[in-house]
């Protein structure tokens, strides 16, 4: 429907909308996060829900203690390899539609512990992530920004067609492989359905680039 016509009608006291708009508005305005944190980022997440930052303004005040009632997983903190299977299992137990915010450097890539022996190098190796927040830890404002970005993302989803969300597409998976503890590392080390090695040009790394000191 034409936006101009819609606002004209609204001025006359007629509200015109589409089912998609209504559906998305309902979903984006009541995203309930899962009540779980892994490290210091969780403290910032808690601060974001308290009176000063008040995440409740965005419809996300109800942190659910059970994955069965949650829509959003905020992976807040360092995911150790020992914890990774439990995180993926929690994600699998959440009902669709479900979203993931990867909060902080550790959850994105392993952060300062990337080359260590017991930290997972990014939760996106096992579950699909919707919004990444850099920072160590990110401030509550950054979490709110990520949350608003997620709301915009939900708002822009079409209910039909190839780009429709996962829960409306029977073909796409809703559960993901839970890694197992191996003798030297997690098995598998990543889920190829959701993650592949990012394409970056490393050919110049470690060499002196011409024209630069």
């Amino acid at each position, binding site marked *: 429907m034409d936006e101009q016509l819609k606002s004209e009608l609204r001025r006359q006291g007629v509200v015109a909308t589409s089912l998609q708009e209504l559906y998305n508005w309902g979903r984006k305005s009541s995203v309930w996060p899962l009540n779980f944190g892994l490290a210091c980022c969780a403290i910032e997440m808690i601060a974001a829900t308290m009176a000063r930052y008040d995440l409740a303004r965005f419809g996300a005040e109800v942190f659910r203690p059970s994955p069965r009632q949650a829509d959003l997983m905020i992976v807040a903190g360092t995911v150790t390899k*020992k914890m990774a299977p439990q995180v993926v299992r929690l994600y699998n137990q959440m009902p669709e539609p479900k979203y993931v915010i990867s909060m902080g450097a550790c959850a994105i890539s392993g952060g300062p512990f*990337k080359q260590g022996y017991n930290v997972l*190098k990014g939760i996106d190796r096992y579950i699909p992530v919707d919004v990444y927040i850099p920072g160590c830890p990110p401030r509550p404002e950054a979490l709110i920004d990520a949350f608003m970005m997620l709301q915009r993302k939900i708002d822009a989803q079409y209910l039909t067609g190839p780009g429709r969300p996962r829960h409306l597409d029977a073909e796409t998976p809703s559960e993901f492989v839970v890694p197992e*503890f191996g*003798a030297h590392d997690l098995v598998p080390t*990543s889920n190829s359905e959701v993650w592949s*090695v*990012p394409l*970056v040009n*490393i050919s110049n790394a470690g060499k002196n680039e011409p024209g630069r000191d």
Partner: protein
Amino acid sequence: MNLEEIKSQIEANVSGCRLEIIPNGSPSGQHSLLVDVDHGFAVATFLRDGATPRFDFCSNVTGIDWPVKEVSTKTKVKKLVDGVEKEVDEVVKTQTGGYLEAVYHLYSVEQREGPVVLRMRTEDRAERVHVPSLTPIWRSAEFQEREAYDLFGILFDGHPDLRRLLMWEGFEDYPMRRDYVDPDDYEYEPTAHDDVLKRAQAHRPAQEGGL
């Protein structure tokens, strides 16, 4: 309080123990006391109950890995070369290391003294990696001994609950040992250099040649 006094105290009270002071050359001069494995428990018990001051608090337990290392020292030796006596450099190669160490830091809260650093050495790095657990003496050592077991593979005899702490059961390596090879799982690095760059290149030979 100095370490010599404590050493003579222990020697007077624990019969048969072999002690050695390992000097620390740094400005802190925090020398440590090497205790033999067989008398480690008796020495620790004496330090807690009988010594003056009594060391009632164990603040820290850690491990050290000493892989086998060849040290060559040069000495000048007089030798007959072609009938003439000359000073010749002789290189003597000695092997050091090849063991694990458990290190304990002890304090006396009562007398505000400390730390006294205790060390115990295992026989080697592979099979005979046993030291006595001091958890029955200082309860605070429990988790830290578990951590030392987890990361260095030191077996503490007499520990009430020696399981892995940071890594999972079934993990076979000891990550803090010098010869630990970590799994090749950081193929992507935004600012790769040195060894990390080599790894990244090994994962992308085509791109490396093409670009």
